[in-house]
């Protein structure tokens, strides 16, 4: 690990200001992803701003009947909150499908959104990667890219976003609250937070330099069924090969793209009276495999159809 300096933030706006003013600064919350990457020297921050003790650990009702989840609420605390469990079960199911209990106790809601891809080539400093070293090339293209993207990928990057939680947030139409270095706050729809790779896969979110996520806001729960499904190589403590979140009439797919993938084509098809199979086909018409991950297109279609038909979740 490279040496760094450290400060414990005393306010969210102060943390954002410090991040903008200090070269090489990164926010540190739970640290479960950042410290792992720092040990591998894939992340080399010169300065850490510890936001873990900011007063952002509350879950509170919003006036319109939704919930605001503070950015440093742990994944475990968010999943266990009685209001989340009863009104947003898809979020609890997605959270407890991710990582291990020890990691969920430490990892935060904000950090979960900001975690980086688990693409094996991103993790291997001996291989070129456009995320680590812009312009170096993508080793996953033509490599052993079994887990990689089938939607929204580019010639520069075929990685996927690893979060389960974010897939549920996409289906719930959540938004993210932030504070910028100058103190300005704004609300970003979850669908606009993460970026597809395009030519610049190292630019992963729409956040400005120094901008800090302070909360996730859930709108009132939608009418209808909520469900999370995850397919992976082992039953627990493994990243997804494909996942799906259903919330009322909304559908989001996970482990298919560099962002949680809101399935708007399928939603529109269903609203127009399409069958589950037709809806799945509408969404996956643009899906492309890059070799060993082509099976994910078939897998995605089958899981989407089964979920829409109301098949058993386990």
């Amino acid at each position, binding site marked *: *690990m490279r*040496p*760094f*300096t*450290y400060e*414990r933030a005393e306010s969210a706006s102060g943390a954002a200001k410090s991040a903008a003013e200090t070269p090489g600064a990164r926010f*540190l919350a739970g*640290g*479960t992803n950042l*410290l*792992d990457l720092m*040990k591998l020297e894939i992340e080399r921050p010169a300065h*850490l701003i*510890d936001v*873990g003790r900011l007063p952002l650990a509350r879950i509170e009702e919003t006036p319109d009947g939704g919930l605001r989840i503070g950015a440093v609420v742990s994944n*475990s605390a968010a*999943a*266990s909150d009685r209001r989340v*469990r*009863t009104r947003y*079960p898809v979020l*609890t*199911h997605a959270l*407890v*499908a991710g*990582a*291990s*209990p*020890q*990691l969920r*106790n*430490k990892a935060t809601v904000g950090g979960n959104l900001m975690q980086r891809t688990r693409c094996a080539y991103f993790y291997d400093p001996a291989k070129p990667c456009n995320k680590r070293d812009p312009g170096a090339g993508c080793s996953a293209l033509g490599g052993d890219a079994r887990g990689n993207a089938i939607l929204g990928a580019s010639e520069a990057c075929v990685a996927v976003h690893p979060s389960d939680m974010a897939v549920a947030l996409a289906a719930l139409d959540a938004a993210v609250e932030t504070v910028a270095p100058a103190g300005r706050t704004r609300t970003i729809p979850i669908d606009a937070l993460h970026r597809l790779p395009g030519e610049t896969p190292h630019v992963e979110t729409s956040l400005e330099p120094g901008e800090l996520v302070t909360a996730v806001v859930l709108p009132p729960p939608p009418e209808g069924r909520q469900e999370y499904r995850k397919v992976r190589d082992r039953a*627990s*403590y493994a990243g997804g090969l494909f996942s799906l979140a259903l919330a009322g009439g909304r559908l989001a797919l996970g482990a298919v793209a560099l962002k949680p993938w809101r399935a708007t084509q399928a939603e529109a098809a269903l609203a127009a009276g399409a069958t589950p199979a037709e809806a799945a086909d509408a969404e996956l018409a643009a899906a492309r495999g890059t070799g060993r991950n082509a099976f994910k297109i078939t897998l995605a279609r089958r899981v989407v159809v089964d979920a829409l038909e109301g098949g058993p979740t386990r």
Partner: protein
Amino acid sequence: MADPPVRAAPRATFQITVNGEARRVDVDLRTTLLDLLRETLGLSGTKKGCDHGQCGACTVLVDGVRINACLSLAVMHEGQQVTTIEGVGLPPDLSPLQRAFLERDAFQCGYCTPGQICSALGMLEEVRRGEPSQETLDLAAEIVPLTDAEIRERMSGNICRCSAYPQILEAIRDVAGPLGAGA
């Protein structure tokens, strides 16, 4: 913090309570909680397996909550209470779960055992608080029945390369008491 000497890695001095004893430590900022325990404080009961949060051998309790000590900086825990396997129990005064691991022969090489025991203690508290897992079918229920499937799922963050899982399950079930009534 005093200005560090030129080229020296930055350090931090802070207080942390380990197994009930307040300690004042001065460490390179890069020191993980795991390395603080093992290298600085000489508490080698907590084990370093993968050092990347994948195996669970380094599991300790911080303010009663189980975490991977390898994926946390020591300085993040200033002022907090850390419990390691040495704080759970030392011979001859072993805790009920440590005795259950012996009685059930719940290990072979023993390397993962401190992490398994700290993890199980944290897990039982999570169940007492009613926290759900992906095995929990009724999210609205106040009480989570601690079935064998629940124990296995909730312990999935602790790998045992000798594969003593059936005996680890039995040892945990032995001490779970009424929590295991749904098993």
